[in-house]
């Protein structure tokens, strides 16, 4: 049995299991001790409590020093004060010292209003600053996806936990010592030259404006105002399940129709859906999966199994950097974003009677790696990108607010066609397990020639970091693996490398929870229940769709008939597939 411990917090008797921290015990009786560096994403097993910022200090009677409550464990008979004068003064002093080396550009900072440092300073009642001292002056590091402004870093080191422990990317580390210490890539090189995958999980947890996304909204406003340009937009599945949060709506509220309406009012010529391209991805990736599976069953020894999904650009960057020897295992199918682009610029532009260079394709993504993905050279034709640029869910919310719209009051509208029609299979791409479930729906029917009785593959859903399930393809057992979060992906990859993997197909998403937890989504501020609500919203939208299997999307069928030919055919290969690069460092020996 768990040993219980009795203690007193703010004159109240508390009983907690041994091992409980003072912070948790206080929370249990409704005492919310302020924190700053502390981060706890319970459902995903992510905990970060370095006790470094000292904002959460409390007084423990009999101890000389104040104790950081986030990493101090409760002890029998402790008497704790969380808000006496000594504690309040200490917290204020700590905050003032932190602010003494922080730029005062809050009015124009991208994080303003959404900044933990700002809100904690407010909560602590800091009204004047008594300390003036040295100020950090680092060069701002602009990468294609992420901007690092280390003058705003408070050394909470949450980003390091995400980058190293959760994602196992290892791009960031605390370097140097004392006042000079800063979180940076190796040799303080630019992020672009490091092993960064642009997953954006560091941005998602940064409590200040030190890590933000590269903002493309001004570019978009200019393009929308240009009468010579036809600007079309595609919206990723996960955006509709989170955008509402930026307008005070409950997490998990679906705002698909209102989002379409907002985009149309912003002035896009056509509002399309990345879900359509997700259906197209299933046609290509599913065909590739079945082809590899059949060849494997026919005894072809050269066929590469398991096949790995390739829709997540953070994941693609990860294996290019960390597992380049395995770059022929993932599907060659481009991500939905990058399938949409060439279809828009090669097919739709012709239908609309406009030139490729007069069309601007914009994507709204829950993701920061997408910003990098659309500027990769292999996705350009004579320098013109298939997708011109990508803006995050957060950027879209800002743009809607700039345009004086309140999302809540907008009418529900429908996507434009032909690239706006999608099935339930396309919608669930945004949650972990969704891509492989969508693939299973189509692959099952194509392989067996039978109709699925129940399209819900419950075994593939959930929030566990690594999941596996066996799907019965009418007598053929197909072993499926799922990983979300790159640390989990690494485990499955190491198994493949060591010849221990039993899977036929594996879905990998770089971000915990899948795209719903992407680096471009509204900030969850440590509340991981928000991610579950977003996932549930996508499955709800799937349930409500008339068509739930990608190969039954009438516009997809039409696209193959009129333009592409057949899945994995010649034109598909040219427009919808890609190849991968070895981005590891090569040590040349002289």
């Amino acid at each position, binding site marked *: 049995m768990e040993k219980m411990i009795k203690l007193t917090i703010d004159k109240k008797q508390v009983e907690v299991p041994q091992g409980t921290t003072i912070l948790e015990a206080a929370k249990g009786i409704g005492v919310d001790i302020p924190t700053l560096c502390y981060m706890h994403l319970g459902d995903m097993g992510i905990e970060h409590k370095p006790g470094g910022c000292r904002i959460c200090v409390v007084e423990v009677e009999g101890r000389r020093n104040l104790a950081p409550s986030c990493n101090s464990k409760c002890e029998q008979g402790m008497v704790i004060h969380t808000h006496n004068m000594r504690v309040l003064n200490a917290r204020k002093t700590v905050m003032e010292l932190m602010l003494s080396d922080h730029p005062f550009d809050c009015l124009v900072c991208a994080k303003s209003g959404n900044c933990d440092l700002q809100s904690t300073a407010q909560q602590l009642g800091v009204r004047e600053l008594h300390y003036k001292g040295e100020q950090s002056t680092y060069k701002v590091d602009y990468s294609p996806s992420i901007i690092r402004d280390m003058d705003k870093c408070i050394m909470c080191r949450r980003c390091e936990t995400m980058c*190293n422990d959760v994602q196992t*990317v*290892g791009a960031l580390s605390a*370097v140097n010592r004392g006042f000079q*210490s800063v979180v*940076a890539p190796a040799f303080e090189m630019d992020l672009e030259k490091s092993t960064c995958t642009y997953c954006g999980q560091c941005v998602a947890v940064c409590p200040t404006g030190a890590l933000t996304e590269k903002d493309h909204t001004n570019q978009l406003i200019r393009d929308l105002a240009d009468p010579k340009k036809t600007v079309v937009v595609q919206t990723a599945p996960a955006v509709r399940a989170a955008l509402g949060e930026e307008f005070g709506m409950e997490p998990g509220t679906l705002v698909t129709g209102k989002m379409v309406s907002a985009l149309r009012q912003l002035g896009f010529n056509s509002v399309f859906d990345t879900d359509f391209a997700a259906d197209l991805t299933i046609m290509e990736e599913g065909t590739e999966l079945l082809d590899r599976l059949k060849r494997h069953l026919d005894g072809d020894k050269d066929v590469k199994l398991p096949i790995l999904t390739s829709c997540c650009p953070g994941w693609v960057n990860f294996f290019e950097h960390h597992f380049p020897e395995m770059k022929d295992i993932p599907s060659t199918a481009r991500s939905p974003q990058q399938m949409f682009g060439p279809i828009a610029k090669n097919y739709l532009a012709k239908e609309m009677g406009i030139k490729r260079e007069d069309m601007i394709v914009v994507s709204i993504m829950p993701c920061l790696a997408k910003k990098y993905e659309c500027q990769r050279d292999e996705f350009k034709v004579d320098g013109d990108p298939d997708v011109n640029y990508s803006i995050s869910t957060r950027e879209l919310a800002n743009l809607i607010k700039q345009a004086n719209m309140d999302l809540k009051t907008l009418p529900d509208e429908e996507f434009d066609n032909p690239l706006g029609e999608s099935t339930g299979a396309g919608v669930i791409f945004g949650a972990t397990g969704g891509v492989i479930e969508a693939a299973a729906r189509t692959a099952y029917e194509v392989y067996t020639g039978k109709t699925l009785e129940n399209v819900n593959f419950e075994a593939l859903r959930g929030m566990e970091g690594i999941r596996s399930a066996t799907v019965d393809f009418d007598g053929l057992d197909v072993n499926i693996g799922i990983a979300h979060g790159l640390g989990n992906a690494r485990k499955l990859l190491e198994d493949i490398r060591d010849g221990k993997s039993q899977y036929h197909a594996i879905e990998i998403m770089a971000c915990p929870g899948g795209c719903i937890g992407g680096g471009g989504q509204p900030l969850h501020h440590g509340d991981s229940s928000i991610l579950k609500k977003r996932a549930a919203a996508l499955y709800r939208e799937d349930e409500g769709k008339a068509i739930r299997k990608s190969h039954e999307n009438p516009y997809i069928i039409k696209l193959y008939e009129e333009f592409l030919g057949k899945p994995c055919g010649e034109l598909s290969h040219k427009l919808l597939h890609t190849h991968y690069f070895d981005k590891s*460092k*090569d040590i*040349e*020996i002289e």
Partner: protein
Amino acid sequence: MAKIKLAKSKVDKLVEICKSFDNEGSELINVLHKAQETFGYLPAEVQEIIARELNVSVAHVYGVVTFYSFFSMVPKGEFPISICMGTACYVRGAEKVLEEFKRQLSVPVGETTEDGKFSISCLRCVGACGLAPVVTIGERVYGRVSAGDVADIIKEYQK
């Protein structure tokens, strides 16, 4: 692919050092010590190879190298001069000694003379406070050094 150039003999030596610590990531500091002892300093290439061999990130290796003042990313001189700035040495005039070394050799702290002969660094206490102020050159320790002694000390090594 970014390329790193390093002589094969150096790579082999590094691989051997890492192996002698069972390629354990937790032995990083010991590996860095040994590598610096062997090469005199820890350039980026050396850190890259250590990271690869120990299966830790280069950022982490660099973080450790920059945290400890003992580790250096610039080559030390043939005769590395260290001036103790510990409390005892400091109060007995170590700063004047340091200034004199800097003036005579025309290099700042942490750098090496152009001919590669001397480098200057500061350290905190070598445990010989009775001899303060203390200067070490390589393995040799000089006690009760005054600014006036500096020229003679340097001369010893210029033969």
